[in-house]
């Protein structure tokens, strides 16, 4: 039975699913029907060290850099319109291959070209992030974002992190008005 998390809540993936090696992080959303430009929401992942920063720009996984250098994190591809039920974008993480110095993988969703298209998360409904045991297909936990996030254009949905010997997931749901720029910069990525 999947555990539903409230904002700020956390759960141990290792305890819920002993022997867990690979997870699928599924992200989904509905965009309200409006006139004008399509909504293109992009999932990304940041591999973070103990200081909460990437080691290099190679630790920023997104539609133009689909795999981490060690192969532990893989983005399964860009969905440009939100077509389709269920997960709109997904990332796979092989927990056993994540380098020891990486303490946390932060999962974010950003609205592509938000400013020009005048879009923000207030126009996005039924957003969720879920963690699935990739070997069995069983959903371990999910966080349904319910806050009105009317000014944010980039949002950290959740984070997968080490806690002692375990891997845990925390429901975050916090964002940035300025979009991917400030979000990525906060994690130490060199943003042009």
């Amino acid at each position, binding site marked *: 039975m999947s555990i539903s998390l409230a904002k700020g809540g956390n759960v141990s993936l290792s305890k819920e699913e002993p022997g867990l090696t690979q997870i699928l992080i599924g992200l989904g959303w509905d965009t309200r029907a409006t006139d004008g430009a399509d909504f293109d929401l992009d999932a990304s992942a940041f591999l973070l060290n103990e200081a*909460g920063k990437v080691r290099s720009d190679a630790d920023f996984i997104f539609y133009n850099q689909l795999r981490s250098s060690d192969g532990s994190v893989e983005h399964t591809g860009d969905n440009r319109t939100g077509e389709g039920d269920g997960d709109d974008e997904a990332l796979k993480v092989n927990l056993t291959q994540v380098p020891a110095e990486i303490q946390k993988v932060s999962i974010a969703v950003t609205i592509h070209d938000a400013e020009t298209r005048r879009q923000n998360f207030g126009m996005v409904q039924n957003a969720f992030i879920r963690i699935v045991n990739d070997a069995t297909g069983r959903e371990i936990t999910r966080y349904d974002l319910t806050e009105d996030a009317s000014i944010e254009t980039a949002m950290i949905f959740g984070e997968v992190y080490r806690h002692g010997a375990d891997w845990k997931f925390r429901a975050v749901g916090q964002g940035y008005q300025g979009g991917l720029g400030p979000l990525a910069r906060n994690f130490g990525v060199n943003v042009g």
Partner: protein
Amino acid sequence: MAISLSKGGNVNLSKESPGLKTVKVGLGWDTRVTDGSGFDLDASVFVLNETGKVRNDQDFIYFNNLSGADGAVVHQGDNLTGQGEGDDEVVMVSIDKLPQDVARVTFSVTIYDADARKQNFGMVSNAFIRVVNADTNAEIARYDLSEDASTETAMIFGELYRHGGEWKFKAIGQGFAGGLGPLARSMGVNV
């Protein structure tokens, strides 16, 4: 010697640190980097008599009443954002100056305006509360609020209490719904 207590544990301070005079409560957290209202965590201390109530409203030490228990408890000031390394709020308790009718000293932490701001400890990075033997700087107990009180907005962290002729500290770690007002009222403060 550093003792680290887990929830429910207690330590005899008089035996562990004979002659212990001062205990420091330290509260720390990271400033908010995402959009939205800042995180304002508040440490508070209730000085209680044998019935578990404050002797008077002065014995509720918090950001609007920085000194109580006849000067034995001193709050070093309100931190509204978590700015700064280490302990962001500190309360000093001079055990040797606590009046005889004081039976317990309870420590708690609350998030200011949590309901309106829709915040809980899990949203805050690196939030902790700890109790330190101020004479030796040894940490007696520490609670990771972000991790272990993640969906709470207020928590009773622990209490110093007299047992026989000695002072002991008990780690409680119990969440409390409703915020500082209801918590203070439950301790007999006129809010």
